[in-house]
């Protein structure tokens, strides 16, 4: 395709308290089908979306976190997490469901500047 754009999805919100994380994931999966260059970014409370061990039975809501593991099957492999956001929450890379690239805030800012379309949730 001649018309490939760089799409970045910026996830800044925690899961379950609001639906944004879940519905963001639905957009990401669709975007993959359009053969675009897709990056996912997790900042602030968005890093909690990737926390291992989510058990949602008690809140009677579907646990959608396994879907992050399925992203690879859709050729979505660019997952970036901001270092400062992890540190402020006491979350380490080992706590995360999937392999990610950890970037410092300045690197993250530079990556954002290279995008064509930024969708933030």
């Amino acid at each position, binding site marked *: 395709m001649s018309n490939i754009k760089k799409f970045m999805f910026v996830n800044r919100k925690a899961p*379950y*308290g*609001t*639906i944004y994380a879940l519905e963001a994931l639905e957009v990401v999966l669709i975007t993959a089908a359009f053969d675009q260059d897709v990056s996912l970014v997790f900042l602030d409370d968005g890093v909690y979306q990737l926390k291992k061990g989510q058990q949602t039975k008690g*809140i*009677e*809501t*579907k646990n959608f976190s396994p879907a992050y593991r399925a992203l690879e099957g859709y050729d979505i492999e660019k997952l970036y997490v901001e270092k400062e956001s992890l540190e402020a929450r006491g979350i380490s890379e080992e706590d995360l469901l999937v392999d990610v690239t950890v970037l410092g805030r300045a690197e993250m800012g530079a990556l954002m500047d290279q995008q064509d379309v930024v969708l933030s949730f």
Partner: protein
Amino acid sequence: MKFGIVVNEGPYQHQASDTAYLFCKAAIAKGHEVWRVFFYHDGVNNASRLTEPPQDDRNIVNRWSKLAEEHGVDLVVCVAAALRRGIKEENLAQGFRISGLGQLVEAGIKTDRLVVFGD
């Protein structure tokens, strides 16, 4: 005890309606009475009979309807808030009724505890 509950956000977008529902179930299980649930702000959207969540997800609207049916909970939707957001008799789910804000104040007066869920 006699509880009044206020729900200020619509279904699915925020967790407020889920938490309110699970609170009501737990209160009833403990022998308390949930006298009225008042839906205000976007909370009125919990009363739309047209919602159709995915098969593997909870049905928030039906859960409220069932609670009303099984435990006599009075589900009241604020008329002013509902008109702004397109909730009317024609798309109102079972067990809900549309009425004025006075019903919220009355819940504050007549119940032992008023608990608010929102964003």
